[in-house]
């Protein structure tokens, strides 16, 4: 039987969830025996080359690009998992929700303390750039999400246990240490 295929991506996230994924340490050797990676920053495959079994999503959706990638993942993965607070709730980026987009852009590009080099007061509007959404959306408001792994980031053990459960079909082990956050 061929190995299950795994894809991962980081949308409006900080890559912290991917770093936590890498925190499985030497178990990564076990993992590559168990799964085949497809589109993912881990192997740097940029586009889907085949139908995948599991997609791990880090981060919510803050721009049009995130939406396209997420929908692409839904199309190409049998199971989608929201990994971490940002994917599940919007997380830190969603702090801008409730502040008008105009104000955010003004602060980021025109008035903020770090805009020194933008002497021409240019707002990013090239057609090639992703368009900013009115707010940051959690993934499950855009596509169907099958599972959620909480945490910021979820611990390596939680990600590992969840993956193993998905691959083997065994029940997910959730000891308290794995989901406690304080």
């Amino acid at each position: 039987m061929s190995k299950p295929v795994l894809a991962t991506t980081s949308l409006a996230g900080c890559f912290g969830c991917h770093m936590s994924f890498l925190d499985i340490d030497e178990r990564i050797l076990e993992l590559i025996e168990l799964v085949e990676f497809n589109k993912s920053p881990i192997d740097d495959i940029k586009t889907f080359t085949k139908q995948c079994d599991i997609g791990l999503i880090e981060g919510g959706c803050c721009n049009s690009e995130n939406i396209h990638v997420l929908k692409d993942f839904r199309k190409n993965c049998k199971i989608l998992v929201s990994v971490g607070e940002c994917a599940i709730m919007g997380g830190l980026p969603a702090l801008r929700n409730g502040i008008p987009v105009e104000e955010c852009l003004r602060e980021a590009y025109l008035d903020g303390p770090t805009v020194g080099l933008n002497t021409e007061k240019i707002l990013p509007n090239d057609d090639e750039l992703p368009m900013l959404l009115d707010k940051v959306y959690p993934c499950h408001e855009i596509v169907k999400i099958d599972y959620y792994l909480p945490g910021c980031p979820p611990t390596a053990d939680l990600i590992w246990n969840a993956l193993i459960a998905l691959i083997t079909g065994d029940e997910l082990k959730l000891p308290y240490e794995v989901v406690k956050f304080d």
Partner: protein
Amino acid sequence: MKDKVQDIIKKYHDDKTRLMDILIDIQAEYNCIPGEAIEIIAGQLNMSKVDVEQTLSFYHFFTTEPNGKYTVYLNDSMVAEMMGRDEIARAFEEEAGTTFGSVTEDGLIGLFNTSDIGMNDQEPAALINGVPFTSLTISKVKELIAGFKAGKEVKDMIGQTGDGNNSDPRIMSMVNNNCLKRIGSIMCLEYETGWALRRTVHITREAVIEMVKRSNLRGRGGAGFPAGLKWEFCRKSEGDATYLVCNADEGEPGTFKERVVLTEMPEQLFEGMAIAAYAINAKEGILYLRAEYIYLRDYLEDVMETMRKDNLLGKHILGVEGFDFDIRIQMGAGAYVCGEESALIESMEGKRGEPRNRPPFPVQAGYMNQPTVVNNVETLSTVVKIMLNGPDWFKAIGTPESAGTKLLSVAGDCKKPGVYEFEFGTKVNEVLDLVEATSVQAVQIGGPSGVCINPEMFDRNISFEDLSTGGAFIVIGKDRDLLQDVVTNYIDFFIEESCSSCAPCRSLTVILRGKLQKLLNGHGTMNDIDELYRWGQFMKQANRCGLGQTAANPILTTIENFRPLYEALVKTDEDYMSEFDMSKAVEESCKYVDRVPNVH
């Protein structure tokens, strides 16, 4: 300003636990609490400015900007909406020339929404500078605004005064008590003030507790905890002093029975408080009165004064050496959660009304960290009748687990809203008949935190073992849109009133509201209904106090009892549907950066 503010602080002996009173007086003086006053308070009370601000920002009726010489707080509770408050709101806006949530440019008129004000039997209703105006009509609104512009006194604009003691010179309110429609067998039993207390002081404190225990009297404020047991716990707790608190916060939308008790039989309440104080040996009692009932304050003070003269309050009550007890009124400032007993205590200590972690319970460490009994108005008033007629007489009324009677505040789609005294065990149908409700889709028992029942359940009864209620009984007629008009209003209420300490109470309420809206927008799936239910159940376990624990009840109980209404909203077989609309989502940002949206 400095002198005036300092005078106010001095009136409360520079005591920072009296911050609520200080802020209330300042708000009344300036129509707001100016920044300068905050600084003076902080200096004088030796607190940081943020400590003052955090109390101040918690309460609905404290503002940092002037809220108008005439300040209208229009009730936006569900029954108010049923009775046409939106039309009244439009009329206020048109006549005043400003919108809700703001003040006219000349600072004359402020229009604001507020949660239930305890007048659901005579909606639409508003508080104007603390004075209730009920059964509002468009012509009354016109008259009011014209009056404001002519500089009239608010209390001169009420027109005719209401029934019963509402016409007492000490109240002079237009409120109608639609008074106690059925002369009930306990609360409303006529008696002479002082008799029960006379009997009480002839027996020991322990014997009083024993009597109340034997009577099986359970708390009327919602939770139904046995009153005698609570007193006994308190009596056994160690402390330097013991306090008795009467909870008259009555914030649950649809409840207004305490308004009627306080207006028509305050002596009975104060006597009940004195009996409880005797039992637990409390010298100091506090009546926590919701801000919305401030129009009753002078009257209540006067009643207490008379009782002091009659030696029913004060020192050596009824000549008994060592039986000293007096009551002060603590006003609230608009926060439903302050009805929760530990939040109430925080508020009485001058802090934000955030519920405490328990244990310790108030009977162990309550007000000022001392043993404290908190009881509801109705509970304490009922004690009087138990002392008069004995526990066995009391126990014989009602059902095995719910002794006695219950005051119900009936409102909504019926001909005779008002307060009624019913024996526990009375069937919903009997209540509906009596209040002349003929075309009934649902009854909301116990306000937003209670249950919404369907007609098949109308033969069930009002009692702790069946349908428990703190007093609200809201009739919802057949032509109402239950989910759109009732459930969303209730969830909005909880979102507004959550103290926000617990993440689920703060966030999941909003998420559930969004999901419900998705269904109402016609974009929901069966799966959304299941998730609403599953997520809603989580609220019961994951929040600190009763507010959060019951905040999903409007959704949970309507899914349980009116599931077809939800299913009718689902227009698809798909198990997932997104409401996301890319064109809309990028519109604003593209416009601002000057770019043509490129959506495909």
